[in-house]
């Protein structure tokens, strides 16, 4: 067996990105026009400003990438564009069905949030020249993350919506701080694990082929578990708890290569869920709804899961066509159930296409993590990617009855400002890290070798500007 190792120097691929973006914008506009044709029989009058605005928005990110991060991954931005655009179209379509037009509509708010999200992404790309700068804020982001997570529990600020206390209200705005806590905690876990992973992975006893950690190294995972249990008990939100604990366990596993962490994590989480199931009726109801959504008493209690399933079934292979189905019959059709709304109107082909887009998005995140050279960047990229993937699993798994339904937003698609802003920040961070990953390595200077005390240690100076 012969092996050849070669360095491959990538092209920037910004032109491919431009081509894909044009296609992406085309898809979104076609979807928008189809919706209006199906509902009203006319091409909407406001298509020109909407199309123009959307194009300007997306192309400005593209231009900023050319300017600031020329080697960034070429497919992340087009995929985010299509997903965000399809979400917008579906929200607009539900607005039409409910007669909420113009500035009353959810779509209007969502367009504003999209604009803000894209602006925030551009700001992150410009302001953050190197993702390694974030490592300095490891413990700051820990504090920020924990505060954001526990903020909904503050009396007067937190709000209970649909049985879960994961919202805060600031004046007229409802906010889900958990979405931002996700990013802050991913930064903290990455910074923390890159420091401690040697201790966590080397010491330990081998039992049954697994290397189990020492008792005193269990501290961090127990703290994370305690936090998840707190969320579970006080915010009554299984989805958020699962997301954070899962994020921590996944990053721990990636950092240490120890399968035993996953076993320990699953065990701990199983204990917590068992406890929650026996103690809270809220969870018992959800599990009951999950196991048997079509029983008469469950339909009476909540028919959204059943309606979503019927909606997807009526879509069939190719769907009813955007604007021709009845997705508004499901409650929360524009947020938690946006996937089943799209499944109904785009059919199996469309919903699988959406899932494949998410899959490629996450694949690029993992590829970025593999490609980037510093440990912090690797862990951060994996953490961000995993949070998107896991959140998607929790919400789409819930909608399609793989796991009990818990309210989380579908990344990029669901109605909701905090989710959209947070996900655009994730895109910006991944673009920044992938720029580092794909950029050709600076060559080691030649000729100063033997005299200079440390010629090969060419450290890159990271300067705060």
């Amino acid at each position, binding site marked *: 067996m012969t092996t050849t*190792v070669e360095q491959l120097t990538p092209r920037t691929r910004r032109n491919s990105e431009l081509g894909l973006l044009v296609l992406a914008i085309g898809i979104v506009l076609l979807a928008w026009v189809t919706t209006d044709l199906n509902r009203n029989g006319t091409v909407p009058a406001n298509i020109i400003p909407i199309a123009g605005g959307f194009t300007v928005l997306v192309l400005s990110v593209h231009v900023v990438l050319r300017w600031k991060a020329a080697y960034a991954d070429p497919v992340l931005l087009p995929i985010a564009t299509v997903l965000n655009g399809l979400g917008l179209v579906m929200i607009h379509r539900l607005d039409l069905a409910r007669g909420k037009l113009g500035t009353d509509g959810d779509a209007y708010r969502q367009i504003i949030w999209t604009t803000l999200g894209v602006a925030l992404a551009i700001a992150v790309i410009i302001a953050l020249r190197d993702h390694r700068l974030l490592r300095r804020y490891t413990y700051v982001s820990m504090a920020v993350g924990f505060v954001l997570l526990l903020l909904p529990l503050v009396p007067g600020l937190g709000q209970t919506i649909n049985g879960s206390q994961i919202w805060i209200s600031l004046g007229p705005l409802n906010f889900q701080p958990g979405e931002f806590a996700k990013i802050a905690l991913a930064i903290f876990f990455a910074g923390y694990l890159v420091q401690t992973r040697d201790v966590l992975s080397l010491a330990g006893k081998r039992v049954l082929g697994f290397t189990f950690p020492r008792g005193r190294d269990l501290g961090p995972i127990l703290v994370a578990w305690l936090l998840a249990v707190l969320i579970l008990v006080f915010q009554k939100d299984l989805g958020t708890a699962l997301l954070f604990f899962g994020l921590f366990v996944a990053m721990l596993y990636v950092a240490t290569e120890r399968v035993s962490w996953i076993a320990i994590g699953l065990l701990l989480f199983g204990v917590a869920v068992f406890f929650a199931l026996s103690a809270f009726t809220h969870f018992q109801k959800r599990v009951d709804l999950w196991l048997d959504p079509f029983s008469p008493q469950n339909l009476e209690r909540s028919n959204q899961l059943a309606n979503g399933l019927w909606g997807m079934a009526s879509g069939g292979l190719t769907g009813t066509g955007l604007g021709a189905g009845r997705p508004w019959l499901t409650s929360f059709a524009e947020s938690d159930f946006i996937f089943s709304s799209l499944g109904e109107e*785009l059919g199996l082909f469309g919903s699988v296409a959406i899932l494949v*887009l998410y899959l490629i998005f996450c694949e690029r995140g993992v590829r970025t993590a593999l490609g980037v050279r510093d440990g912090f960047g690797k862990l951060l990229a994996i953490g961000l990617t995993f949070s998107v993937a896991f959140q998607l699993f929790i919400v789409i798994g819930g909608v399609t009855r793989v796991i009990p339904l818990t309210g989380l937003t579908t990344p990029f698609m669901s109605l909701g400002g905090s989710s959209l802003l947070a996900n655009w920040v994730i895109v910006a961070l991944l673009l920044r890290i992938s720029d580092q990953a794909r950029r050709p390595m600076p060559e080691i200077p030649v000729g100063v070798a033997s005299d200079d005390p440390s010629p*090969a240690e060419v450290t890159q100076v990271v300067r705060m500007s």
Partner: protein
Amino acid sequence: MSELTLTLLRLGLLALLWIFIFSVVAVLRTDLYGTSVSRRGQRKAAKRQAKEQRKAARAPQPVAVAAGGAGGAAAGVAAAGAGAPAAVSAPVADGAPAPRWGRGRSKGTPTTLVVTEGPLTGTTLPLRSGGLLIGRNPECALVLDDDYASGRHCRIYPDPTNRGGWVVEDLGSTNGTFIGRDKLTSARPVEIGTTLRIGKTVLELRG
């Protein structure tokens, strides 16, 4: 709006969505970066060896004796002593049968680095003007999976004083880099046939 138009729009949207996915995948297919490690099976190597032998027979002067054939690295070691350009590291991607290098350079200039012992046996790397970093860090050109190697163990770069020559230098490694039995203390020039030992790994320079 006629039913037909609406159906066409509906299917057209789905088609466009999938066209988008396939173009994304097409972009990804050509978007390779980082280090690529390509393994070649013995059959492929044997096939190339046969091809090269035929070519050598046809050529007026048999310059290139194809090496690195069926026996993999072992055969490569045996043949390379003769100073023939070893074909072990001919790039797989462009499928060129003849070695790319070794032509138009003075005799005795190494062009490739071959791992002859250790976990990575059989790995070859072309020497390039930017220099090669060897060690356990993933940023190195040759990433050693060897407990006795340091993160940045040593490097090989073009000799600044002697055009065409190459120099190896230890980067303050814990367990040292050896040429034969001598531990490297300063940068030393290397030539074809020089063997470097790093932990359990032995590297050889080939023409």
